[in-house]
């Protein structure tokens, strides 16, 4: 009978194990950013598609209605306010939401909320943005700014702030409050876009409202008047109002930095001395290096955050007569 002497099995030394673990950790470290990038690219592509759908909606709306939908406020004292997006709902296959709202009373009235303006619409939510949980409120509810409506990340411009002309940042004569692609009360037709449909921004991103974001960081969580006025997809105040820009840190308005610096000015007081009851949003997307932009011709392109504010203003105006350098 041969008794096997249990030989000492050759194992791994501690150093060998550590080296293997370190190599695995480095490989994972290399892989994770790549996975994140693919996720972000997919989100950006969904965002592009959302804007494309809205662009198709505008074009389908235009001919039967003899013009584009505008933000309606029948008079300064009227409390009924309707955003263009509401009129566009049937052209975005959201007839059910459209049929559930009563446009003779304001959007914040209980009859309009469920299943109306509190409905989240995928087509107005950028998947890169931290929305979904956030909802927006109205200044006229009691208490004010109770969260009642669903958010949307896409907004257009009424015009360009005349302040930018004094600052020498835009082409003289183009700082007007009503030369953008979205109008108040008056109905715009494509014939009014004399700069050309492909040279005019119809919609862009202003995501994360009503919370205030500055340079990628959450700066203020919305509460009372500490908020960007805007966010709810049914609210005319969610329009970007006028292109104004800010300082590089997003704290001082107006200024020469306009894209991805801040998603808006914190109200402080309501009505605001400059914006009054209108929106205080700014161009802001959660994509690296720029924002998606829908042009009035229905094309969607990526606009880099290094784009000069003069170029951006030229794209915002529909009838400024500016000559444009290549923006891509």
């Amino acid at each position, binding site marked *: 009978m041969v008794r096997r002497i249990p030989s000492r099995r050759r194992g791994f030394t501690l150093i060998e194990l550590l080296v293997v673990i370190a190599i695995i950790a480095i490989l994972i470290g290399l892989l994770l950013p790549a996975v994140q990038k693919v996720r972000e690219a997919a989100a950006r592509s969904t965002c592009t598609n959302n804007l494309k759908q809205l662009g198709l909606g505008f074009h389908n709306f235009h001919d039967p209605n003899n013009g584009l939908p505008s933000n309606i406020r029948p008079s300064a004292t009227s409390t009924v306010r309707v955003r263009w997006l509401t009129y566009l709902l049937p052209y975005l296959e959201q007839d059910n939401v459209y049929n559930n709202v009563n446009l003779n009373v304001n959007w914040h009235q209980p009859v309009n909320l469920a299943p109306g303006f509190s409905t989240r619409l995928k087509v107005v939510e950028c998947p890169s943005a931290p929305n979904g949980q956030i909802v927006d409120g109205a200044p006229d509810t009691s208490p004010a700014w109770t969260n009642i409506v669903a958010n949307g990340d896409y907004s257009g411009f009424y015009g360009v702030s005349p302040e930018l002309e004094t600052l020498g940042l835009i082409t003289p004569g183009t700082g007007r409050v009503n030369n953008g692609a979205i109008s108040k009360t008056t109905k715009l037709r494509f014939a009014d876009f004399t700069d050309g449909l492909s040279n005019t921004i119809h919609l862009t991103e202003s995501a994360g409202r009503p919370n205030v974001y500055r340079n990628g960081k959450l700066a203020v969580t919305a509460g009372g008047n500490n908020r960007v006025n805007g966010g709810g997809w049914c609210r005319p105040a969610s329009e970007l109002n006028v292109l104004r820009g800010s300082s590089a840190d997003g*704290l001082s308005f107006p200024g020469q930095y306009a894209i991805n610096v801040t998603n808006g000015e914190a109200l402080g007081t309501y009505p605001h001395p400059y914006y009054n009851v209108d929106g205080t949003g700014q161009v802001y997307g959660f994509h690296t290096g720029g924002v998606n932009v829908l042009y009035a011709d229905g094309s969607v392109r990526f606009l880099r955050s290094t784009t000069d504010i003069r170029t951006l203003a030229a794209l915002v105006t529909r009838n400024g007569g500016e000559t444009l350098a290549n923006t891509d």
Partner: protein
Amino acid sequence: MYKRPAISCLVLLALAFGPFGCGKAESDRKPTFAVEGRVLEGTKPVANATVVFHPVGDAGVKPRGKTDANGVYKLTTYDGDDGAPAGSYRVTVELWATVHADAGPVNRIPAKYSRPESSGFAAEVAEGPTTIEPFVLKK
């Protein structure tokens, strides 16, 4: 056999932490110095006015500021309240406010104050914290 893994450990550590040494990109910002002043109408402070400093003989960035309830402004050139580069400036004052919700913001003080040629206001910014004499608007 002991030395080799130790060396490769060091190499791996260097690989893992090497890329974090990048510095901040150089910017073309000029040095700025804190500047503040007041805007008055007669003796009353003017709130929410936009004060713009136009550099004389230079097409660079224009420092600007907004007055608070006491008529006090602090200039911003690149970042909030960072001041202005030293030099000579002509100064304009505007007060943009939205009165009627459908009309958008309009300038509420006379247009001559919004042009550097006609405002009659000038200022010098020194290389250090500067307080500018009040700009007095006439009715």
